[in-house]
């Protein structure tokens, strides 16, 4: 497949506006400015584009809600708080192709009649900040940003807002709180951000990759776009592959490429010719899959039918030598660290599960510990404001579902037979 999102990134100056224009950049914006805002929203709806942040919500529908709200000014926020462990797909766009994102944001702002935009960038990407700020400056100089975008009546002002190391701020209402200068704790919904978002105004929050798809939809049209990849959620998709594979990296493939093809054809198979043991297919919060369950199309609709989720498309691969109790423990340490503390089941449950997993891994596991873990997980799932708690619960449940033997062996043998311990 011809690459669109990662087009031109081998060019060392791909982040420069002149290079981007030379490769056809900002042509979609010119086309979009000649279109009525509502017509662009219709086009995005027809394209079938779904949000690439993890939830897979139809972008056109989100835009329709925000557009229908009579309050102004409206805000457009790009969620660049890529923090789901295993995920690094937005990074090449932010660092190598920033103008694609900016062009996508200006078109979206025109469609939504949003006058102000922010890129909420994670604090852990200092290089991206410099690159984005420079790109925004260039876009202002060329008249793509400002009170009159390319001399039109559409005005759009864009700046970068840097996060400061909080995973939860990837959740859109927590992100909005953080942008307002508060602790990043999720809000209860409704009201939804499309009606009452940042500074109490209608707000659309879209992921980097989602917004970067917009120029492509305008360029080739909704109909052609909707024929790429899976019919129910079409388009190109960025998959970030890490762990025990020969060629880890970010791969742009049609949505719905199977997990097997991603691992064996594109990422070069298992490192050192070893056997596959398990895969986390969509970032650490998605259910683990055993080696014999990887013939699943990686898209939002198919993955739940195959026992997991697409999430952010972050594939983490484990070979036969990996201790999965330890992986589960490390995942839980992450959830414990990142729980914002608002909801009791998540705040208390993540730490509790981490400590039980820790004693199992270190040889002090007791009979009944596995059921205890399932009991705690069951008391978190569905009982929290935001999906962080659900993620922690689902991770535990699925590691035990597919690899219960390994947990039992740790308890019976008083430790990991591979000799691993928690750090």
């Amino acid at each position: 497949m011809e690459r669109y999102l990662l087009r031109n990134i081998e060019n060392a100056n791909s982040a420069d506006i002149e290079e981007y224009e030379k490769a056809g950049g900002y042509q979609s914006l010119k086309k979009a400015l000649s279109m009525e805002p509502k017509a662009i929203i219709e086009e995005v709806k027809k394209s079938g584009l779904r949000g690439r942040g993890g939830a897979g919500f139809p972008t056109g529908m989100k835009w329709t809600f925000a557009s229908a709200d009579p309050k102004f000014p409206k805000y457009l926020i790009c969620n660049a708080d890529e923090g789901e462990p295993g995920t690094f797909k937005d990074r090449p766009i932010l660092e190598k192709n920033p103008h694609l994102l900016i062009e996508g944001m200006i078109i979206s702002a025109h469609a939504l009649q949003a006058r102000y935009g922010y890129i909420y960038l994670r604090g852990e990407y200092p290089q991206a900040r410099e690159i984005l700020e420079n790109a925004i400056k260039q876009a202002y100089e060329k008249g793509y940003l400002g009170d009159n975008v390319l001399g039109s009546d559409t005005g759009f002002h864009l700046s970068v807002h840097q996060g400061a190391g909080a995973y939860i701020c990837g959740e859109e209402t927590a992100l909005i709180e953080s942008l307002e200068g508060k602790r990043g704790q999720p809000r209860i919904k409704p009201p939804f951000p499309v009606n009452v978002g940042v500074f109490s105004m209608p707000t659309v929050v879209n992921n980097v990759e989602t917004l970067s798809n917009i120029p492509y939809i305008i360029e080739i049209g909704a109909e052609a776009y909707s024929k790429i990849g899976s019919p129910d959620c079409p388009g190109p998709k960025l998959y970030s592959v890490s762990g025990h594979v020969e060629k880890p990296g970010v791969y742009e493939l049609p949505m719905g490429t199977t997990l097997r093809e991603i691992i064996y054809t594109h990422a070069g198979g298992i490192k050192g010719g070893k056997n596959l043991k398990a895969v986390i297919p969509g970032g650490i919060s998605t259910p683990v899959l055993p080696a014999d369950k990887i013939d699943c199309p990686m898209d939002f609709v198919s993955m739940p039918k195959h026992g997991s989720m697409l999430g952010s498309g972050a594939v983490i691969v484990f070979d036969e030598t990996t201790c999965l109790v330890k992986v589960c423990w490390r995942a839980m340490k992450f959830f414990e660290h990142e729980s914002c503390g608002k909801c009791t089941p998540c705040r208390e449950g993540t730490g509790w599960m981490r400590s039980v997993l820790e004693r199992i891994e270190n040889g002090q596991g007791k009979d009944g510990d596995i059921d205890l873990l399932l009991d705690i997980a069951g008391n978190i799932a569905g009982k929290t404001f935001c999906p962080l708690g659900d993620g922690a619960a689902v991770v535990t449940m699925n590691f035990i579902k597919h690899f219960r033997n390994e947990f039992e062996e740790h308890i019976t043998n008083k430790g990991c037979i591979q000799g691993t311990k928690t750090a």
Partner: protein
Amino acid sequence: MKELDTIKEKYPTTRAAILPALYIAQEKFGWLSPEAIEEVSSTLNVPKALVRGVSTFYAMYKHKPMGRHLIQLCTNVSCMIFGAETLLELLKNKYGLEPGGTTEDGRFSLVIMECIGACDRAPAMLVNNDFHSNLDDNNITEILEKYK
């Protein structure tokens, strides 16, 4: 904190400038000392308790003095399976560095990170604002020697 004037213009409320202001104050004072919090509070005209409350939520704001160079090492799953923990051992043995601690000579501080988006080049760390990846026992010491 003059640079704050241009930052404040980007937002309809002054409060929204707290996060950028905390970064500027941290850069100036080295950490978010009581003086740093005071300065953010008085510049933005926002109560001190509120500034402190916001600052403690975020892992990248420092609430104690840091060494000259900040090592932020990822130990999350993709880095862990490629030996991030042995790097922790090495930092402890060679520099006496514990997670959250600072070397006696004030050269390095160490913070454990939850994924820095470099999983395809694991294990990885940030030293100050510089990315270093594909780390092992040998190259990590070579890299760190460049930070005096």
